[in-house]
């Protein structure tokens, strides 16, 4: 058992347990009978072609898209009852960065879940937000308008917001997309650090070449879960050829040889 803000979390429960999950948008199935189990401390990438349902899988795990059938458990409970233990990093491009707000304000949004309705973030929340910005090496930009940020800085702001949530499970949607090499490195080391602390990370990832470097587990997804396991077990050319229909770029490292 670990204690978190009045909640007792059984440590023997998997971080994420998905059984027979089907999600549809209109008539198109986005996810079909997906099964997936991640133990605590997993550092997992979801890979798969466009339209494979990668973001949908995250949103179903967050409990924000309705499921047609199947079951989702986060740390042994329905996602709706685990919100305080879950952090979400949406796709950076999913929001309007010209929104009139500051870096610190966006990071403070990570405290809204704990604050509840009507309460405003105060000094304590500000300190937490600044600390998270510090960790993302963004503290000196706390007062900056978000419209003035580079892509890498935007991603750091989103990650700082997730850090403020102080979660056990982190769902990230393409955190490496369109960021510079330095940011990529610091995101990777942040993920490693979180996983080392026993946190669980499930992240949509597009760059096949870096999967073995940044992740320990891989979920191969194309509407159905084709394979789940450690990168060594499942991230093979034959699996990837099947996943992408035989059009895998040549720069994916071969695992048989490593």
């Amino acid at each position: 058992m670990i204690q978190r803000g009045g909640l007792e979390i059984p440590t023997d429960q998997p971080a994420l347990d998905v059984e027979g999950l089907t999600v549809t948008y209109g008539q198109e199935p986005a996810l079909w009978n997906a099964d997936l189990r991640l133990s605590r401390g997993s550092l997992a990438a979801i890979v798969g072609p466009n339209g494979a349902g990668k973001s949908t899988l995250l949103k179903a795990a967050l409990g924000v898209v309705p499921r047609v059938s199947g079951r989702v458990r986060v740390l042994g409970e329905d996602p709706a009852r685990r919100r305080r233990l879950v952090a979400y990093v949406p796709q950076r491009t999913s929001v309007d960065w010209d929104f009139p707000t500051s870096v610190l304000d966006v990071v403070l949004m990570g405290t809204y879940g704990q604050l509840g309705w009507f309460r405003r973030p105060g000094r304590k929340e500000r300190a937490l937000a600044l600390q998270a910005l510090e960790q993302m090496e963004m503290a000196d930009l706390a007062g900056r308008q978000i419209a003035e940020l580079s892509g890498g800085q935007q991603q750091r702001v989103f990650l700082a917001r997730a850090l403020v949530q102080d979660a056990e499970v982190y769902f990230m949607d393409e955190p490496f997309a369109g960021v510079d090499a330095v940011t990529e490195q610091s995101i990777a080391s942040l993920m490693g650090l979180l996983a080392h602390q026993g946190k669980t990370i499930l992240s949509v990832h597009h760059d096949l070449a870096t999967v073995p470097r940044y992740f320990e587990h891989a979920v191969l997804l194309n509407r159905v879960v084709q394979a789940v396991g450690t990168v060594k077990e499942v991230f093979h050319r034959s699996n990837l050829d099947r996943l992408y229909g035989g059009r895998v770029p040549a720069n994916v490292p071969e695992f048989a040889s490593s």
Partner: protein
Amino acid sequence: MSAPWVDLDPTLVVVAAGTTTVGAVSGALGCFAYLRRQGLVGDVVSHSALLGVVVAFVLSHAITGSASRSLMVLVPGALIAGTAALMLARSVSTRTRLNEDASLGVMLSIFFGGGLFLLRWVQRQSPPIPGHTGLEDYLFGMAAAMTRADLWMIFALGGCAVVVLFLAWKELKVFTFDPDFSRSLGLPSRVLDTLMMALLVAGVVIGIQTVGVILMIALLVTPAAAARQWTSRLSTMALLAAVFGAASGAGGALLSASEAGLPTGPVVVLLATAIFALSLLLAPQRGVIARARARRALRDVPPPAAGGAS
């Protein structure tokens, strides 16, 4: 020369207080519509309100025997029609392949067309329904007809909207900026969406008497767009938009009172537009002039000294 506001008559005080409140409330509420790119939604609500206003007028005549043009009767009609148009548009776009903009446009046409049709029908009744001649003022507004009871209605509805906006501020903010993230926090997106619509509808219906259903959208969006030019803080933006809206409302009431024949609604909207135009030109960072100057400054900077990596 005496200032025109020294000897204000009580009617003008009521009208000016009403238009100022309407401007302030719709300015503040309009910020969220602007940031969510829901200008069209506001337009649908206001145009559809015409149908509700005319139906409420006819019903009040049928039920009480004397038709009423007071806001107490017409506001519920406008609320119902505006909300119905939005809900129908929503259900059409989720159930058919029509996209949201198209279904909003269809509902606007149906409700506004229906409103115009019914308006003409009411005006041709014989014997004529007393008070029917004032009904078409709802097209372009007739602030001068505002009564003390109307003013209380505006205060009550506008006050409620502002209180709700203040209480749910951080939830509305995160929902507007990042809806997926706010859902992941467990915030009920349907409730927030409905709340946002309700605020918009409230802002629209209290304003249609002043500026009319056709121009109401200008009073929602223009102060917000002007305020956005000057600030990058949401709270400052809402306050500034409220100030711009209030100034337009007050200015419109006073100008049209001092110069015979000036229609209040269009003057209010033109004042808001003037503030917007000035903001577009003069704002310190986002303004057209500031940006041109910044570009020129950049061009005059000598290129980095030779030997640099670039």
